[in-house]
């Protein structure tokens, strides 16, 4: 690897990738593949499926580097968003959906599936954990079901027995609340809530 890449900004890295520098893609992978894999694994549970998502995300970065706009946020955020979208697509594919439903049915049968307990499992990191955990249940639960379980908001409404309009409003207000509290904690720079 050429030495300058190890300290390169996201924008410089993306530009180098656009110029067919594989060492720049390798540097992006070194920096971000771990968390991308962690999120995909969190969502899909299956290692092979998560690996596939990581591969897709980085190959896409190579093929279409200009889809990443440094003005809109960090490269890590972009890659995580890409990974989330792909993982959710997989979860909603019929075969994946069936496996997931079977797994969730087993978890319920064993008495192991409880959203409150699940929350304890997924919360692993400092301030994000605190902020998510501090949300009112009415906002936190739909956010978790949508983001970490890959459900559409209509499905979330069915699961929670709430009107669809209520669910989308609560997801929105919950995200706004988190954004405000993360900003107070010194996290977050892009985007402003009106």
């Amino acid at each position, binding site marked *: 690897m050429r030495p300058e890449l190890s300290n390169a900004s996201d924008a410089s890295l993306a530009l180098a990738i*656009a*110029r*067919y520098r*594989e060492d720049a*893609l*390798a540097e992006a*992978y070194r920096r971000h593949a*771990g*968390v*991308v*894999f*962690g*999120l*995909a*694994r*969190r969502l899909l549970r299956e*290692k092979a499926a998560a*690996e596939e998502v*990581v*591969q897709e995300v980085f190959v896409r970065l*190579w*093929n*279409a580097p*200009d889809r990443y706009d440094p003005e809109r*946020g960090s490269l*890590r*955020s972009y890659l*995580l*968003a890409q990974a*989330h979208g792909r993982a959710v697509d997989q979860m909603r594919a019929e075969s994946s959906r069936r496996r997931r439903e079977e797994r969730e049915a087993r978890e319920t049968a064993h008495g192991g599936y409880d959203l409150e307990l699940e929350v304890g499992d997924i*919360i*692993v*990191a*400092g301030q*994000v*954990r605190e902020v*998510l955990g501090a949300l009112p249940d009415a906002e936190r639960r739909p*956010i978790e079901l*949508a*983001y*970490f379980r890959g*459900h*559409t*908001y209509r499905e979330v409404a069915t699961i929670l027995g709430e009107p669809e309009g209520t*669910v*989308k*409003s609560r*997801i*929105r207000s919950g*995200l*706004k609340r*988190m*954004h405000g509290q*993360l900003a107070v904690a010194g996290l*977050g*720079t*892009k*985007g*402003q809530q*009106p």
Partner: protein
Amino acid sequence: MTHNEIEELLGVYALDALDEEERREVDEHLPTCPRCRAELAAHREVAAMMGNALGESPAVAPDEIWDRISSSLLDEPPALVPFRRPGLTRRLALVVPLGAVAAALVLVVALLAAKVGNLDSQVSSLRSGTSFSSVYLNPKHKTVELASATHPGWRATVILLNGNGYLINPSMPAISRAETFQLWALSRGKVVSLGVLGAHPNGAAIRVEPTMTLLMINAEPLGGTPQPTTPVLVQADLPVGA
């Protein structure tokens, strides 16, 4: 869907929790609404922070994934999207009602959009949501003429607006079947490939970054090369802010 209805969907949009049809409606609204874009950026930031912090740990990707990625990469420049300009001659413009011209353009744009949709991996140079007609019909577009210092017959035209460009009317020398024309730009003192044009280019959609100051076309071995290996055939300076 009204602005307020779209606004209500921004949270679920950021979490990838919308149905496809609603997602499309939000996608169509966003380019027109800075307020919604700003709110969505904030939601996405929160989503990214959750993804970053709450994934499975330890967050270490297996080495074999990189090996698979590395071996699957194409080390050739992408082919530019083939593109044929609508036949807007002066005579046609005079005798055909404006509405018919507009309809023809809409058809061309629709066909182009369909083609672009099928070539997702090849359209890194084309910003989505733009079209030849929207650039060509906008009076603010700029025209750049690529020319040869030695052969007056070799030339090509690029029309530009806000970084979206279309290479049109190329007139280039004959090359062998083992070669392709390739489009290059000078950016921050370095030559970067914008893509290959084939041996018989009709035109192409391209993306021009603000850092680019010069456009060039040369002939390269089939498939193109990461860096130019033969002399430039035609070139033109790019206007500042193109």
